[in-house]
């Protein structure tokens, strides 16, 4: 991740390397916990999806800013067969 491509090369001391390894391990634990929490939220989320569909077919879908367009119920998506509702993707496009 680079916001200005600004980095000065230097050597990592064993102490810093050990700190990084420990933090990476703890981050793995945090991620697993978050992923599990989001999996457990799936039934609630299913209800939120339905409420979202209700709103965009009656009040409207935000196309740009506050410009809204009502979506025809016929245009609503169908959940692909066998697809698990998933919202956490560890490495984005490289997760699949």
């Amino acid at each position, binding site marked *: 991740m680079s916001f*200005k491509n600004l980095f000065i090369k230097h050597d990592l001391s064993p102490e810093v390397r050990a700190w990084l390894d420990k933090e990476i391990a703890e*981050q793995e634990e945090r991620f697993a916990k978050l992923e599990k929490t989001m999996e457990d939220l799936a039934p609630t989320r299913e209800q939120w999806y339905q409420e979202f569909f209700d709103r965009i077919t009656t009040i409207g879908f935000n196309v740009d800013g506050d410009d809204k367009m009502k979506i025809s119920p016929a245009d609503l998506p169908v959940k692909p067969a066998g697809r698990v509702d998933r919202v956490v993707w560890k490495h984005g496009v490289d997760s699949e």
Partner: protein
Amino acid sequence: MARPHIEPFCDRDEGFKSLQLPGFASGMRYKMLSLDVDSGACSMTVQLDAGYQRSPGFAWSELEMIVIEGELQVGERTCRKGHYFFVPAGYALPAMSSAQGCLVLMMYNTGEPSHVESTQHHPQAQVDLYHSVDSYMDLPWAMGNVTKPSVAAGCLIKLLNYNPISHAMTFLYCMTPGYYQDNISYHDCAEESYHLWGTSWMMQFGEVPTGGYFWRPAYINHGSFASEYGCIALGRTDSKLFNHFHYNPWSTPVENADRSAARLYKRDPLLYKWAFSKDHNHPHGPEDFEDTMLRRGEESGHDNEHKSDGRRHDHWHGHLHHEPGSPHTHADGTTHSHD
């Protein structure tokens, strides 16, 4: 693999740990928010205890900071909540201290946290990029429509940092009470946010309260959005922010990325054809001749090898070239001339 998707996370659920890395003074405690497993770049909530003092010095990594609570003394300047700093790698900050203690969000962008005691900038520091501002008091809110299609009215921003090459941004944003936006969004960039105050809601992740945080890789669905009582947060993107809105909650990151490419094909078909159909899809991307062409600077023997990202590149940030024999002063204070 860079940073993993961390969302939703709330630092209030975690305890502080003492930061015991070389160079950092005692009395600095942290909560890790996200960490790049390759570079060590990370974002942390940092508690500086009352009486904390740190010597002048620089980091090997670019650093961004914003004061969340309390007062931070940086040299002669007293910085209160909302004070933002962009600190280039190698830029020597003056001594820092906090008499009563403070809470700071620290983001090391390009490497692990480090502090090298020094009153001088590193010779490779791009010192002109340093800036700081009291973002709460000295900047006005602007409409959030920095990109089209735009977020709904009621989402306002204050731009804090902008990379003219990648279009990466750091910004404060707020949602007014009663805010809502009924669409699902994804971006071609990674996005990060820390809730300084207040709660917002996203359809995938539920509520993000004060201290709430996410690091979200590109192409991941988020939204619809709401905030009942309003919120204020610090946000960042690592490249150009474009809102791809849709209403399919089951699309995957790969499907979203394919859609982005399809939209590029529809919008810029000639560019798409050039980039993807002529073997130009090299792993490092198509060549930008401005990055690689031979420049006159090399002919004169002048060192144009800025090593900021470990690669050779040219003077995108610009500086004056000098006539042979004319003395000039560099940013690190050294004065010399070329024969």
